[in-house]
């Protein structure tokens, strides 16, 4: 069932809407995250790892950090895409099953940040992938990442 199938509303039978609302509830309550650093300075990465620790503890929001792209819903990318990690970024995005979202974490991922204009730097995740949500900050605070993911939850169809 890809996103198109789900959002294709044939005729809103009560069973269909009930099923869709349950699926939407489940998708909003269980977000499995895959983190990939496409060349950043690992400031945002340690803040992403910080989300799992007792002070911020995103497991209470149903967010788990997954190892394999096949298991992930949201791709958290940091870093201005360097030319070497561009192909790998696109490949990971392709390996993730639908429905999937891309979140650009940090100023580097949003616009290349302080490395803008570098010869080996593409400048931002949106040069390679369609980005659903930008989280600014260099490095962005864990609270900002949580706020970003919560806002992403409202975007889920």
């Amino acid at each position, binding site marked *: 069932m890809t996103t198109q199938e789900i959002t294709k509303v044939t005729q809103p039978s009560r069973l269909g809407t009930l099923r869709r609302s349950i699926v939407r509830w489940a998708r909003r309550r269980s977000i499995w995250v895959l983190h*990939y*650093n*496409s*060349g*950043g*300075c*690992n*400031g*945002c*990465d*340690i*803040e992403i*790892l*910080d989300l*799992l*620790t*007792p*002070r911020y503890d995103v497991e209470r929001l149903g967010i788990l*950090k997954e*190892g394999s*792209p096949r298991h992930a819903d949201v791709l958290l990318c940091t*870093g*201005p895409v*360097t030319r*070497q*990690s561009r192909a*790998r970024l696109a490949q*990971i995005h392709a390996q993730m099953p639908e429905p999937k979202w891309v979140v650009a974490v940090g100023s*580097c991922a949003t616009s290349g*940040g*302080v*490395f803008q*204009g*570098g*010869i*080996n*730097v593409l400048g931002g995740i949106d040069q390679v992938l369609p980005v659903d949500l930008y989280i600014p900050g*260099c*490095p962005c*605070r864990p609270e900002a990442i949580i706020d970003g993911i919560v806002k992403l939850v409202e975007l889920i169809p």
Partner: protein
Amino acid sequence: MRRITIPIGPQHPLLKEPVSFLLDVEGEQVLDSVLRLGYVHRGIERLAQERSYVQIVHLVERVCGICSHVHTTTYCKAVESLMGLEVPERGVYLRALLCELERIHSHMLWLGVLAMNMGFDTVFMYAWRDREIVLDMMEDLSGGRVSHAVNVIGGVRIDLDEEQRKDMLARLAQLEQQVLRAKNVVEHERSLRARTEGIGILTPEQAKQYCVVGPVARASGLDMDLRRDMPHLPYSELDFEVITHDAGDVWARTLVRVLETVESVHLCRQILENLPDGPVSVRAKRRAPEGEAITRTEAPRGEVIYYVRGDGSESPARLKIRTPTLTTLITLPEQLRNVAVADVSVVLSGVDLCIACADR
């Protein structure tokens, strides 16, 4: 037995940053490994040639997110010696204070990542929870949890009033308690020791041959620490010990780093207690004279070197950064030779890889 190559690829739960190891494995033993960097190469040295001295302070702070303050300290020292500036004593003390706080934060972060890669999530959770105390202290001091933007050419832009100093000392006592608890766990926890002892061995001769620096070298018996070997303020006035161990395996590195954290807590206390008063920075000109300068500092992972060559204009003709992780990356094929595949994650996290540092 069939020989297969296992990619610990750019994207792997074990690695926080993209780097590619190709392990040549036969059965359960790793025979050889090929390293490919370049995934985080942003060309910082070339970018620096197009920016002015003041702009480079922000660029250099983003070489590595974990030890950002050490990079700006070394860079500013190089430019100050190029311009012939003399940083006031209070500024030097505050710089050293943040360097030590960053060492504590980096070592506790590393302890957590090592435990997580060993499947010991509890130590990861507790180590990172205690690390929040250090992050709060750095945030109160400089406004930033991870990158602090404290250094300017000519000194420091923050200052510490009496009440803040008292509060820092109180938090330091609380932090010391947690660090001692972590030390206790590391020294007495059997399953952690069983997974790290005798693995990833680097003999002292190999360490000397590969010019290794930092905790990895100290754990292999090389007694080198720039804070003591290159006497400069404030370390020449503080007393601290350089911890070495001669087993050279991941267990020795764990001990060295944990005991170093305890030393750093004592250092912070001494810095805070006899903090000289006076100005914190000196006004710097925009242009640097012709000439070159090279400075070295002891970062959490070892010796960081900055070489700056000025040509009289507002931006340097050449900026060379040598980070310590490069020296430990060269030794990895040695350490990984005939290690079990299950131990690869312990060896890789034992060397405290900071790929953003290595790639620049």
